[in-house]
């Protein structure tokens, strides 16, 4: 039932990407280069993983699967960091994004594998790797948006934050508005996905399972599980970001420390 795609089919889609890049360059929107790099990356990365996925899933070594997971988390953390316009200095920037991904994805996946899926062994790669991948892919978008919003606002509103400190507010009170906004920004994508699921969009994993012959209700149950994990993971991830960054924005006397921020 699967219709095979020919190289010609793919080049039609590639042409669209090229057109968008050209249009963006013409309108000076400044994304063409990044768009082309991202398109090449997705092609190469997917081809490579497609080649080794079968071997990967056949592996039974826990250490190897943990290693793969840490590589996935670090790469996602790096991607988040490279999208920020303003970063924390030193290793803090990478630490914040990777640390929050660890909470949002690794711990949630672990919990799910141990208590819900209960495969044998629990780290069975055909469950662990795609699950972690889906969580990382989705929560990293939310976390990147949350960090970006928080840092931008903190930078733009620094006189206002100091004004609130001068009036005797605690550091947490002084950035309460910023925290709310960052949380909202981070949660928008997954909230949209949950609201639109089934009515507007058919989630890829669920559709894939059904097309491959799985019972629809079983596929749906998996999709609901994933949605709940992504939303709670994103929320927890953004909360850890807020906590870590606000620790870093203020010193022990709740003074705003902008020397710790780096401009892109």
């Amino acid at each position, binding site marked *: 039932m699967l219709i095979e795609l020919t190289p010609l089919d793919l080049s039609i889609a590639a042409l669209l990407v090229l057109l968008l890049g050209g249009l963006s360059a013409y309108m000076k929107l400044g994304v063409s280069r990044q768009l082309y790099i991202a398109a090449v990356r997705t092609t190469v990365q997917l081809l490579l993983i497609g080649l080794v996925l079968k071997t990967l899933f056949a592996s039974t070594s826990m250490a190897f699967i943990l290693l793969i997971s840490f590589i996935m988390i670090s790469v996602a953390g790096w991607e988040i960091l490279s999208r920020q316009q303003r970063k924390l200095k030193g290793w803090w920037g990478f630490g914040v994004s990777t640390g929050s991904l660890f909470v949002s994805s690794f711990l949630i996946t672990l919990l799910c594998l141990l208590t819900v899926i209960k495969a044998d062994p629990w780290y069975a790669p055909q469950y662990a790797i795609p699950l972690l991948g889906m969580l990382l892919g989705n929560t990293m978008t939310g976390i990147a948006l949350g960090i970006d919003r928080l840092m931008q606002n903190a930078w733009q509103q620094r006189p*206002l934050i100091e*004004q609130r*400190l*001068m*009036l*005797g507010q*605690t550091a947490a*009170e002084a950035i309460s508005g910023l925290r709310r906004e960052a949380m909202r920004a981070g949660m928008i994508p997954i909230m949209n996905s949950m609201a639109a699921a089934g009515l507007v969009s058919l989630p890829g994993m669920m559709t894939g399972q059904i097309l491959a012959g799985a019972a629809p209700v079983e596929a749906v149950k998996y999709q609901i599980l994933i949605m709940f994990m992504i939303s709670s993971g994103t929320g927890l991830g953004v909360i850890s970001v807020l906590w870590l960054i606000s620790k870093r924005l203020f010193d022990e*006397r709740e*003074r705003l420390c902008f020397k710790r921020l780096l401009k892109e």
Partner: protein
Amino acid sequence: MQLLQIKNLQFLHCYSINLQVNAGEIIGLSGVSGSGKSLLLRALADLDKHQGEVLLNDVNQQSIPPHLWRKQVALLSAETHWWFDTLGEHFSENFTPEFLENLMALGFSEESLQWSVARLSSGEKQRFGLLRLLQNKPQVLLLDEPTANLDETNSLLFENLVKKYCAKQQACVIWVSHDEQQLIRLCQRRYFLENGELNHVN
């Protein structure tokens, strides 16, 4: 009684600032732009890193939680900032008779609190900024060129309110200004900040 004691305060290019301020006293501070007047006030409010000791009623600044210190040692910066849409939201809700009296004293009415922040002039912002600060009942007022944007009449209203508050609460004030006449009119003692040193003006 010495309300505020500054001992050996060091920040940036100022290596040793010493000053004692009594309750009920208004101290005038002037100096050329960039001499560190604003930074001195920021260090007193503990908004910047600094060395040396600052004591309020013999209690060390560093031994009090920072937000409680800043309630007691209140800084009115040269430019005030507002984060809600209307003025009133920036004030604590129960308007004491004293607060309403202060509001009138600066030429406003209770209805003024309905104003949108976007329409405020810089002078109005300074005056409402003082009222907002006084709601915390600070013991030390650090005023950074507070009347720079005010006309003469409003400057006098502002000065009178600060004088009255200071006397009534037995608070003290450090008033930064470029206007020598204003400082002579208001202050018991005046200082000039130059080359990182605080010099008494006779």
